[in-house]
């Protein structure tokens, strides 16, 4: 096909388009986050001892950590749907944030329980259940962010997919906090990291291929 024929083909396909806006993308994700949380709580999935849990530092530690990582991750991901923007600096800060959150957990742990019987505390059967539920709750945000990523024009698809994965996984974990019966920081650090890590890995592997442009 000659260049002129190619130009004509593109022009004949021209339709008015609505401009992409990072703010609109952010609102879509904020609404999805709120909707998922509302549905989760409305169907009675929250733990029954919530008033007691809310008095424990570990509850607030896991809730705030997951929430902050999810919101910052979503901001990094959405910003990088613009072809001119690179998510690399944001990803570095996210990584720092994850380690700060885990480090804070060790302080909470030391203040709460002290050392000993670490393996028994991990309770792998419940842990795997947590991983499964967290990943399930991460599906709506990863689909929504993936759809926005496909609609956008990320020029660092690998890094953007990583940011999407971190944001979706952290949001899934955030919602799950309301049902998670464990307040043991070691259990939370290990199993939340496994659940979030797996979902992030899946997003990193699949999204660049699914959103290629």
């Amino acid at each position, binding site marked *: *096909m000659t*260049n002129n024929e*190619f*130009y*004509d083909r*593109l*022009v004949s*396909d*021209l*339709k*008015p*388009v*609505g*401009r*992409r806006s990072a703010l609109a993308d952010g609102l879509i994700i904020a609404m999805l986050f709120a909707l998922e949380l509302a549905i989760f709580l409305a169907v009675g999935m929250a733990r029954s001892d919530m008033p007691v849990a809310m008095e424990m530092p570990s509850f607030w530690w896991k809730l705030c950590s997951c929430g902050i990582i999810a919101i910052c991750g979503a901001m990094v991901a959405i910003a990088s*749907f*613009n*072809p*001119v923007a*690179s998510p*690399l600096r944001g990803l570095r800060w996210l990584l720092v944030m994850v380690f700060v959150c885990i480090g804070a957990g060790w302080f909470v742990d030391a203040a709460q329980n002290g050392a000993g019987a670490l393996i028994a505390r991990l309770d792998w059967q419940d842990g795997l259940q947590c991983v499964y539920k967290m990943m399930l709750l991460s599906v709506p945000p990863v689909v929504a962010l993936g759809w926005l990523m496909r609609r*956008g*024009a990320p*020029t*660092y698809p690998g890094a953007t997919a990583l940011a999407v994965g971190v944001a979706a996984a952290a949001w899934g974990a955030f919602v799950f906090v309301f049902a998670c019966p464990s307040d043991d920081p070691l259990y939370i650090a290990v199993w939340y990291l496994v659940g979030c890590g797996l979902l992030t890995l899946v997003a990193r592997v699949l999204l660049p291929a699914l959103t290629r*442009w």
Partner: protein
Amino acid sequence: MGNGDWGAWMSAAQSGDASMYHRLLQELGAWLQRYFTRRLPPGMVDDAVQDTLFAIHQKRHTYDPSRPFGPWLAAVARYKWIDRLRAMKSAPTEALSEELAVPDHEESVTSANSLERLLQTLKPAQSEVIRLVKLQGYSIEEAARRTGQSAALVKVNIHRGLGRLTALVRKQADDE
């Protein structure tokens, strides 16, 4: 870079103005032709230009008219350039078109352009086999005989060299 009106033309195209869009595509086509001529082997330039124009067409809604058009265009073009460099890894390493093996043509391909500058940053063993196999159309076996490397090493050096090129282009983009 380019004409200061391109941003306004793209803005008009976003609203459905076909005549402005046609004019914009013609100018972008010429700009991309120059861009890829300095960065890719001649056999890949036309495909890269049309592929990039198609990407611009599909992603035109991501351009924000309140921002300069140049960086947006450069980001899309660089993304497609990296795409092509990656594709060279999996592209056939033999039986390229005969014209690529003509020595004079080789000189025009590799003289004083971005691709050549990038190749010079690689290890000599890597840049040599990339030039022979990917730019001049030699087979792996022929390149192995000419360089004294084993066929397996030629493949490894091509793979690693092209991976390094892609990383360099990415790094340049981050540093800008």
